[in-house]
């Protein structure tokens, strides 16, 4: 039986605790598109690079976006050549900088799923309240449900799904109820400690064996059925669903989030009148197949050879939560 997880932190926790080695051979754990850095479309990365090259722009983003390569460039490389690119621990860092540096055009490059999107909305709210003119948001945020529907519609064959823990803490467990009810897929929301992961896997195996798909919340300490309404209302006030390209999965309808038209002033793409950039992919990179769970990292011809943590060629190796980075860190080059 094949069980997929779709959360970068689960990918990492499973590798770190050696969960796979504890399970019998007939239970296969596979990583899906759970790392928002890894699923960011190359076209979006190309736009971020274009923004960073503008001399009056200071670009803020989370740390693991810095090294994602697009062609033979990354934000980190641009930074070493003089571009003003900064790591934020919270999007509010960008706001503080914008206030102290009114002559800089500050861009918040927002990447993340439901757990992180409210933070970008909070940034927008604070910027509007404080009348900050020199900050804008480039939203590359995404939402999980439609991506899961699209994934399960492909040739990906899985028997059960480990649902993300912290996405669920914001979106509510009910956001994943469609998995057993519409798609007949046993699902369990899991925490991040090894015992919590094993309980979730036990629940999934039981459901598979009994043929009774359901949604089990195996992380009730943190996840409730209903969403965090404050966060939801805040996101709804600033962002709306839009079609989005996911690396490895292609265009998925209503799986991204864009600034509402009435907030166009804060929308980086409108403020800078940026036209979409087309990108030619590195032909041997198989990040797309890894992200769909179609192959293991070690099956990519570049893994452990040309593509290494210190020299990543694709997003799955760059992000600390990428499937390839996690595999390499805990199991080496797999040779």
């Amino acid at each position: 039986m094949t069980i997929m997880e779709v959360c970068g932190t689960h990918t990492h926790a499973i590798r770190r605790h050696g969960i796979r080695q504890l399970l019998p051979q007939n239970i296969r754990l596979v990583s899906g598109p759970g790392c928002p850095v890894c699923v960011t479309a190359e076209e979006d990365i190309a736009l971020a690079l274009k923004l960073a090259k503008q001399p009056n722009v200071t670009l803020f983003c989370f740390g693991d976006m810095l090294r994602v390569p697009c062609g033979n460039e990354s934000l980190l490389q641009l930074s070493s050549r003089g571009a003003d690119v900064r790591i934020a621990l919270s999007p509010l860092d960008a706001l503080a900088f914008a206030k102290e540096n009114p002559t800089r055009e500050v861009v918040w490059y927002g990447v993340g799923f439901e757990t992180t999107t409210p933070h970008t909305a909070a940034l927008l709210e604070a910027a509007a309240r404080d009348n900050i003119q020199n900050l804008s948001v480039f939203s590359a945020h995404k939402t999980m449900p439609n991506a899961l529907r699209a994934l399960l519609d492909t040739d990906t064959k899985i028997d059960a799904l480990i649902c993300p823990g912290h996405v669920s803490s914001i979106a509510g467990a009910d956001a994943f109820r469609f998995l057993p009810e519409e798609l007949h897929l046993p699902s369990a929301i899991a925490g991040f400690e090894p015992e919590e992961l094993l309980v979730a896997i036990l629940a999934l195996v039981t459901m598979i064996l009994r043929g009774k798909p359901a949604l089990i919340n195996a992380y009730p300490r943190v996840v409730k059925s209903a969403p965090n309404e404050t966060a939801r209302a805040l996101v709804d006030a600033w962002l709306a669903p839009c079609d989005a390209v996911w690396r490895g999965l292609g265009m998925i309808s209503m799986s991204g989030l864009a600034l509402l038209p009435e907030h166009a002033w804060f929308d980086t793409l409108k403020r800078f009148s940026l036209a979409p950039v087309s990108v030619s992919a590195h032909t041997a990179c198989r990040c797309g197949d890894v992200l769909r769970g179609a192959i293991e990292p070690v099956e990519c011809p570049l893994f452990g050879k040309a593509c290494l943590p210190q020299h990543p060629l694709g997003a799955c190796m760059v992000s600390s939560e990428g499937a390839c980075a996690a595999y390499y860190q805990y199991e080496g080059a797999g040779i």
Partner: protein
Amino acid sequence: MCLAIPGTIAKIEDETAFIDYGGTTRRASVRLLPDAAVGDCVLVHAGFVIQKVDPDEGAELEAILKEVELL
């Protein structure tokens, strides 16, 4: 990316909570959880408190296993 750390709220000033992570204190915004109170154990992600953590650890795993048995 979904990395979230549990800590205890030591103090709240306006929208800023001071979170104690077992010896070290860092700030986080409570904008997303306005009813968070001093003494609450909470989950913090990217500078924001996102959810409360129920203190009772052991009983919950048992309850889940019972729920699985009943399926």
